[in-house]
């Protein structure tokens, strides 16, 4: 990884893109039947919780500028690769949901993995540079989505009471709390220049802002039907129209799929940089093939076993990873202080 060619802004961009995908492409068993107000409150709680746990770690890593440990790095890579598998399965499910013509899952997974393999071999710098292009495209379509629906906003549709109490616990651990993509920031920021804690806070807050805008917009357009939608953003895109442009959903879906593949690429690219130092030199160039083969096996395994959502497992693993860094760094700091 080149240390002088990646800025903390770019790291924030790739992290934001990796996290925002799930707001638009919902996992198949995502929490529903909650009002926008409940979702917003839980999202805020989740964001605060994430910041409280992660910010000290970001600051610690900033001070040390060093890697944590071999086991932890490989653990982080494993989480990212599993998250990539989860995202591939999710993307395949989403494409099946939005597409009329069914495409064999094998073909779709193969296409995604081919792009991921290419992107990951180009390195984190290329991915970081591409992030701005992807982000600009996403922002344009997001504003288009809101603009296309603004004529249908009804403030009376907003529910002001907390509904769906039975799903509160699920919502609290399911909206924005500890996505495994936090690891992308923690790993990539080591080689980036700039104020890292500030960038991380901004990333989480922007993510929260996007989430709130989407949740409120969906409810203002769909009313109580919003909580019944499995893919609310897609419904919003399908309904929205701007002048003579009535089928903007095609644009939105394409962009969200682009984001999803980009996220998977980022996960694998970062995992690659984590694993590479521990691989013998002669195998370094071939490592990507190994990773792609492993991802293919895992994807088809999950597909055959109908494992469609590993979010809870990944979130727990991320919390363990972040806390482990914190503990290790603190112990080392204490040792250094004694010496």
């Amino acid at each position: 990884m080149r240390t002088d060619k990646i800025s903390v802004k770019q790291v924030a961009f790739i992290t934001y893109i990796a996290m925002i995908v799930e707001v638009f492409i919902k996992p198949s068993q995502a929490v529903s039947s909650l009002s926008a107000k409940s979702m917003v409150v839980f999202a805020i709680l989740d964001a605060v919780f994430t910041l409280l746990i992660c910010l000290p770690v970001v600051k610690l890593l900033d001070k040390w500028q060093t890697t944590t440990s071999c086991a932890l790095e490989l653990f982080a890579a494993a989480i990212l690769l599993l998250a990539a598998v989860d995202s591939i399965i999710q993307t395949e499910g989403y494409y099946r949901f939005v597409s009329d013509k069914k495409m064999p899952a094998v073909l779709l997974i193969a296409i995604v993995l081919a792009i991921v393999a290419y992107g990951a071999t180009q390195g984190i710098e290329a991915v970081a540079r591409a992030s701005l292009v992807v982000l600009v495209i996403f922002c344009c379509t997001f504003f288009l989505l809101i603009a296309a629906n603004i004529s249908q906003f009804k403030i009376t549709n907003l529910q002001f009471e907390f509904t769906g109490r039975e799903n509160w616990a699920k919502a609290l651990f399911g909206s924005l709390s500890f996505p495994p993509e936090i690891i992308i920031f923690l790993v990539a920021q080591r080689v980036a220049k700039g104020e890292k804690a500030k960038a991380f806070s901004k990333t989480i807050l922007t993510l929260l802002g996007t989430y709130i805008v989407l949740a409120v917009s969906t409810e203002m357009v769909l009313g109580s039907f919003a909580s019944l939608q499995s893919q609310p953003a897609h419904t919003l895109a399908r309904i929205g129209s701007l002048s003579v442009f009535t089928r903007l959903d095609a644009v939105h879906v394409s962009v969200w799929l682009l984001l999803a593949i980009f996220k998977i690429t980022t996960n694998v690219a970062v995992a690659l940089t984590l694993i590479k130092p521990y691989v013998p030199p002669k195998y370094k160039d071939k490592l990507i093939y190994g990773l792609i083969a492993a991802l293919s096996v895992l994807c088809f395994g999950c597909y055959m076993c109908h494992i469609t959502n590993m979010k809870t497992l990944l979130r727990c693993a991320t919390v363990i990873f972040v806390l482990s860094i914190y503990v290790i760094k603190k112990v080392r700091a204490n040792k250094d202080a004694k010496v």
Partner: protein
Amino acid sequence: MEKTLPPNIAQTKRSLKESFGDSADFYMKDITIGGHACCICTLEGLSSLEKLWIMMLDAVNDMSRHPVTAEELFLYIWKRTSIPVDQNIVTDYPNLIKFLTAGTSVILIEGLTRGIVVSTQSMQYRSVGEPSGEGNLRGSREGFTEPLRVNISLVRRLIRSEHLYIETSTIGVLTKTEVAVFYHKDTVPESLLKQVKQQLSKIKLQMLFDTGYLAPFLDRHPLSLFTVGGYTERPETVAAKLCEGKIAIMVNGSPFALIVPTFFSENFQSMDDYSQRPYFATFIRLLKYAAFLIAILLPGIFVAIANFTPELFPAQMLYKVAAAEQATPMPLFVEALFVNFLLEIVREAGLRLPKPIGHSVSLVSALIIGDAAIKAGLLGTPIIVVAALTSITSYVIPSLYEPIIILRVLFILAGGIIGPIGIVALGLFLILNICSIESFGVPYTAPLTPYNSSVFKDGLVRASWKKLSKKRFTIQDLPGAGFGDEK
């Protein structure tokens, strides 16, 4: 063959005879100047015999006293005559050949191991005219021509500074072509210059006739569709790039300068941008970006929608597309490929044939493809319209013509075989490909990404000259610029 010139002219003449053989243009004449045996050698066509003899007569007429020794004669011609002698003196055989092939004449004097080089060049070449490939509304109408020396003078005339350095060398085992490296000492990054010179010195070509031969040796991304070197025929473009800290390379015999490093955003800029009002220049630049996207994406998206999600078409258009597809024997995807290949064949034929026949080819192909093929029901009207539109848009950015054509075909294949997800996947591949390229240590996508405020000064947007003139811009100001440490 001896390397240094012998004192005996006859021996040198024999060597020259051996080298040039019975070449029709090789001219050698024995003369006596001031009582000393001399020999004049030159190549007709490259050098003017008339000019040479006028000079010689002038020198002999003015001779008040006959030089006693050969050395005295040498010094007399060298210093006291009005003959425009070259500063260089030939002392060895390879240099003698070099000067003769450069169009100069050489005077050899019996008893001396060196010869006098006389500037009598008189080559026939295309005059300086308007560049054929880079039209401008305003600004200079001059374009480079083939002789390197003329091109050097054109650039020198625009940058009247002692800091404009032009270094020449020869490349090509058989052709010994002169290559010039232009740079501005004040603005060029040292490591970039070193890197370019190093790469050039490593080139082992048998022949060299164009700057395009050198580009692959300077490019570290041979498999990428985009190249890190840009071409121009305009001296003022070279001058502007040199002032930004870039390096221009020119080859004798080619009117194209190769500029390194070149960035993606520069393909959408032209010299006219700087003469027009900023708002209009910005509009044109954005229009070019849109044209680029239309040129590569439109047929692919059209085929993907028609084949996989036809409900996205407006009702009227859907009926027309469906009717056209029903009436033609080939599927839409094959039609799109066929029409695009046909357009390229027509373009290629029009380009290579003599101009009068080229026009006929265009006319015949337009009639056959545009009219007869539709009437016969071989091709549908919608796909012809799409192909024509994309073909026109691809001419808006001539420097990206090659990648546009390849990408267009790839997008048609992706859209036709895989559908919308194919377009998305290939789109991401393209973004990653462009973003992974580094042009001599600077990201090819700079200043778009990594982002730099200069994108709103002279990138996507062209700011006013008042704003641009506040700070001198060089490529070292670009984000991520790390010269010399390219992967």
